[in-house]
């Protein structure tokens, strides 16, 4: 007497993203800490020295947060208007910030009052930065100028008036004290040398530039403007290397991961994309709740800080190794090894008589009903809500099994309004899924046959049937379009393939061997 063979639930290939090293790395962050600021967060800058505090510029304030603090460690509030671009000096002692009122303020990180105020710009200053010799400040403003200031004397050293629109981003070289680059809304980015009065290099981005980034080696420059991220080779005289278009709204911020292997770009479309710097392919993607204005990574990628237009600061900290292990351990919830092997490794003694216990076969609910030939009940069990929603392949497999047994009609018939509407809603949800369609179409036809006579008696059912009709019509249209595309592709392939002559005994030629590998195949792999 053979035992009952349970219904075979096929394992369908996962159509989602594949698990790579990158996804594992970038998913290994804790749930974000969210802090409400006073306004849109325009800039985030990490202090170069430990403990790597970061300055968050939002509205009229600059808050400095410690690496794990939820509350600001320090606040600078002495701005008359909206502050911009609070940045640390390379020794972490000084902080510079621009302001809507065109005054550039320099703060001691320990103090409260500005040490210096640089006046000279006529409009809002959106860009401030320290040069690498630590004694000068670069500023860029909406008055189309950028200036260099001397910190000790608080005097203006030079003015560059080459841009023809707002300057919204700029960066100084970390290796050369005289070099700096600015990007403007006039679509150009210019490389300046403080030793000469004019720009030494100018490149056209094509869109208003929002953000600039220099590689640590400073051979490559990345600019973001519009929906594009472009990489320029400075050593080849500003030759464009790649142009990336992965966002569908303006890219606002750029960042490099600590090892320089991954480039991150944040955009108003609420995504942060991670690119590999070797092939510039997107390897990972973060989603956020609102448009992103600013992004920064802590050294060693310990945390990702993102500022958004809805004035929420989101901080994600990397999981410690123990934590990540703990989480995976919790997910399994398996009995301990000792419980698992309990009694299994017992070696019987010579005189022992072995009594074998019959192994109980555990069956799913629907299988129990199928075993008893209760077909309607089996279908009901398989259509329970959590199964239906989480594992649609289970009801589909049960329907298939019933069809194989020739009892699907019996199982579908004789249902009341509620049961029928549940059935129909499942069909509407999964009917056009290519994996389930062959099975569900048969079931749908049967339902229509069985319940044809009661049409118009229940508004709920009628509505669902109309929805189904709608769905099918749309699906047919899609399929038509797809077949058209396929036809076009076929002709293109056929014309592009060289016609080659094959030696043969009776004079046939190869015309076409189209490769549509596995187009209509679904392969399910079953592990051991």
């Amino acid at each position, binding site marked *: 007497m053979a035992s*009952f*063979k349970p219904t*075979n639930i096929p394992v369908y290939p996962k159509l989602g993203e594949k698990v790579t090293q990158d996804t594992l790395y970038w998913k290994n962050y804790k749930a974000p800490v969210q802090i409400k600021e006073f306004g849109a967060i325009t800039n985030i800058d990490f202090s170069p020295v430990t403990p790597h505090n970061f300055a968050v510029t939002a509205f009229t304030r600059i808050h400095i947060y410690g690496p794990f603090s939820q509350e600001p460690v320090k606040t600078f509030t002495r701005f008359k208007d909206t502050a911009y671009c609070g940045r640390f000096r390379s020794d972490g002692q000084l902080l510079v910030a621009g302001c809507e009122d065109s005054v550039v303020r320099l703060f001691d990180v320990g103090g409260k009052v500005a040490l210096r105020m640089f006046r000279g710009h006529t409009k809002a200053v959106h860009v401030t930065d320290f040069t690498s010799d630590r004694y000068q400040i670069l500023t860029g403003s909406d008055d189309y100028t950028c200036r260099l200031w001397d910190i000790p004397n608080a005097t203006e050293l030079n003015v560059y008036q080459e841009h023809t629109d707002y300057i919204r981003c700029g960066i100084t070289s970390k290796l050369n004290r005289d070099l700096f680059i600015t990007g403007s809304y006039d679509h150009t980015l210019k490389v300046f040398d403080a030793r000469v009065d004019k720009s030494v290099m100018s490149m056209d981005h094509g869109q208003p530039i929002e953000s600039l980034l220099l590689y640590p080696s400073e051979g490559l420059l990345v600019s973001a403007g519009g929906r594009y991220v472009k990489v320029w080779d400075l050593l080849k005289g500003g030759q464009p290397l790649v142009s990336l278009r992965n966002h569908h709204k303006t890219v606002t911020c750029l960042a490099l991961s600590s090892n320089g292997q991954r480039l991150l770009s944040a955009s108003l479309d609420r995504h942060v994309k991670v690119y590999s710097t070797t092939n510039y392919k997107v390897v990972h993607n973060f989603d956020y709740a609102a448009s992103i204005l600013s992004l920064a990574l802590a050294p060693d990628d310990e945390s990702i800080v993102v500022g958004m237009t809805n004035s929420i600061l989101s901080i994600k900290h990397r999981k410690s190794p123990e934590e990540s292990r703990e989480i995976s351990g919790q997910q399994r919830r398996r009995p301990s090894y000792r419980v698992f092997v309990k009694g299994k490794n017992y070696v019987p003694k010579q005189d022992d008589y072995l009594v074998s216990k019959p192994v109980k076969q555990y069956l799913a609910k629907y299988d129990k009903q199928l075993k008893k030939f209760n077909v309607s009940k089996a279908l009901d069990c398989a259509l329970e809500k959590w199964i239906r929603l989480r594992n649609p392949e289970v009801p589909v497999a049960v329907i298939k099994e019933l069809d194989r047994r020739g009892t699907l009609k019996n199982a579908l018939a004789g249902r009341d309004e509620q049961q029928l509407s549940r059935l129909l809603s499942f069909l509407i949800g999964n009917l056009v899924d290519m994996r389930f369609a062959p099975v569900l179409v048969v079931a749908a036809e049967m339902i229509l046959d069985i319940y044809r006579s009661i049409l118009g008696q229940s508004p709920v059912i009628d509505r669902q049937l109309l929805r189904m009709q709608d769905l099918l019509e749309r699906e047919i249209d899609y399929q038509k379009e797809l077949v058209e595309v396929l036809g076009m592709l076929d002709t293109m392939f056929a014309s592009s393939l060289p016609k080659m002559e094959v030696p043969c*005994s*009776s004079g046939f030629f190869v015309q076409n061997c189209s*490769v549509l590998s*596995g187009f209509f195949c679904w392969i*399910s792999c079953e592990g051991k």
Partner: protein
Amino acid sequence: MVEHGDIRVVHRGGSKIDFRQPVITNDSRFLLCASGECVKVFSTSTEECIHDLQGHTDLVTGVLLRPSNHLQVYSCSIDGTVRLWDFTDGILIKTYVIGCPVYSIYASANHEGVIFIVVPMLGDKRSELFQLVAVHLPQSGDQLVESRELSAVLSNVSSNPADIAFGRGGEYIASAKGLQLKVFFFKKQKSYEFSLKEDNKKGGLNTFTCVACHPKDDCIATGHGDGKIRLWRNFNHKKEYTYSTLHWHHNAVSSLCFTPEGTNLLSGGVESVLVQWRYNQESQRDFLPRLGAAITHIAVSPDGALFCTSHSDNKITIIQSCVKVSAVIQGLVKGDVQTDLIVDPRSKALVLNGKPGHLQFYSLQRDKLLYNLDIVQQEYIHELGLEQFEVVKAAFDASGTWLATVEERKQKSAELEVNLKLWAFDEQTQSFVLNTTISAPHEARITAMCFRQATDSQTTMLVSTSKDGHFKAWQLATPAHTEGPSWSCDFVGTYHGLVPECCCFSADSSLLAVSFQEVVTVWSPTSWELLTTLSQPPGAIRDLCFGRLSCSKYLLGTTAKNLLCCWNLLTCSLEWSTSMDISLLLADPLSENMAAFCCQAGCTDLFVFKPSEPRPLFSHKAVCSGTVTRAVFAPREKMLDSCEENSQWLNRSQLHFLTQYMDLMTFTTKAEDDRLMASSKQLVIDDSVAMTPFYLLLGKHRHQQQENQDPMSSLSAERTPLPQSSVAIKELLQTPAHVLPSTSFLCSMFVQSLLISVTDLRSNHSERHYPQMEKTWNSGNQQHLFQENPDDHQMICRLHLPQLRSICT
């Protein structure tokens, strides 16, 4: 043409064992069942076949224990004889010649010396009408007894043995046919007839399908086509009979059986559930479900401890009192062979589709089913008219590590469901484990499938061709995100939208040949480049086959228009072609030989040839009637060393084929037959009592006594070889003392053994010199003989005395 002197076609096992109801012996140790032309005796505990009772020359149609002697069994056959056997030793005791085909046999303990058989009305084999006759078996010492005195009991009965049954104490016999039940009372010599209406209200079929009689009570149980069971009582009246109805089966009841005490009634049908009804408490039922296939017969052992059920898939299940299946005797399932015959490279077993949804592995050497591999892995629903998944194709790779199977299910309205499954051999469990399931690998039926004969460095590859006009190559790949390697599609090829029919890899697997109707395309499997096309119109290619070893440059194909073509792949031209209607072409994997089954005038001829030689190596006219569509070369375990030209092709492998009637046949050489014969004889000797020292001594003694009774040597009282060569002495000395019989017994024997030799000598001597004295010897006067020549005797005695003394000390 080469003559086929010593090669003959023989049946190769795998005969039906579910044809008739099996019989369990009184001690429940053996199970006897009719199987083709012999009766097989199985052990109920070990499932092994113990004897084949061979002797009938046609299909055996019934087996019955002799009521007066429970160690003997009757068997009847279409060849018109009833034979009586001793089944414990497998000896034929008597043959009763009836003279016309016998379809079933019945007997009752109360009818001493009479058996009841069903024979055709007119004594003609083709007659559709049958009668039940009583045969008085004459008491005679002869082996072959003519018993043609038949006295008719009932006319117009069914030839199905389940339709006739003996009633309580053999008082009456019940027979059912169509819609009529007849009961014949022997005492009154009167028969009663009861008939049912053609159709009842619900449209069920009322026809009788089987009959069983209660052993202790006047009650007849009948099974019906609509699944009902009727219990008839009071049937010795014409009018006042009654019946009650039991209904559980939803299809025809195929077998009914009462337990010996009459407490339970067993029934079975296509549902493959054994139902046990309590007699008089019919609402109480016990079920034994999922027995595997439709039940065709049910039998109960005389003590009621064992039940056994025969199933339509050539299986007998032995059940311990409706609780537990204790043994399964499975024969080769040959219902509808869909797959080719394949040989598993690992176990050398023959592989073909067996039970629905299973592949069976059948050992050709041991004539035994090894195991069934469940391919479909679905609960089998036993219902008539339900479309089931069938295994239609199977293929092994060269090393036997991968198995590919195709299962399909065709419904009337819905589209074809096809699944391609790939199985990996698991060393630990020694069986195949499912690796990949590909649902709908093609949009239409798969026509052919073959593995690439990969050498170690290459990856395994499977090519499948389908009616949808594509052929696909499948390859083992290791995707990053799953744990194990799995199969995926590597290449899809088409040729002018034609339908590919067969595919074949060359011996070194550097070429793939795919036939598209009348064109053969040759591809390179590494680059998927079309290398060449070969064509010999008209007629679509039916079979395609590469040569092996030295003939590997040849590609052979048969076309539907009776043409056998051989192309040379080096020149890409036709080497030769001949006009033959070849139904099957196959290559021996171990040699260059090819076998072609050629259909001619309703018969099949076999030709074995080498592609490089114009003359066939071997030909056999009229191998069997009908066409041969399935055949296989099975490698031999031990190579034969025949040097004769016409049997050399059988040295490495043996050719098996399936005839139209699903008989598995093979070719054997004379040398092989002889060897088989010798081994079977040896087996018989070995089969006797165990060889213990005790046996050697006593057995010899008995042997002597038997010989004494021989009329020829009655004079020479004892006859053993000369003392120096006598084993008896050696045994006496070498056997441990505690296993020896008493000394007094041995002593006389021993001394006798010393004495006889002389008389033996003498007898020979005297035989030579005095042939005229034979008569006096036969009178048995030994004294007289000793007196005649006493000197001689004493001399030899003296010779042996020192020896005897040394032994005794």
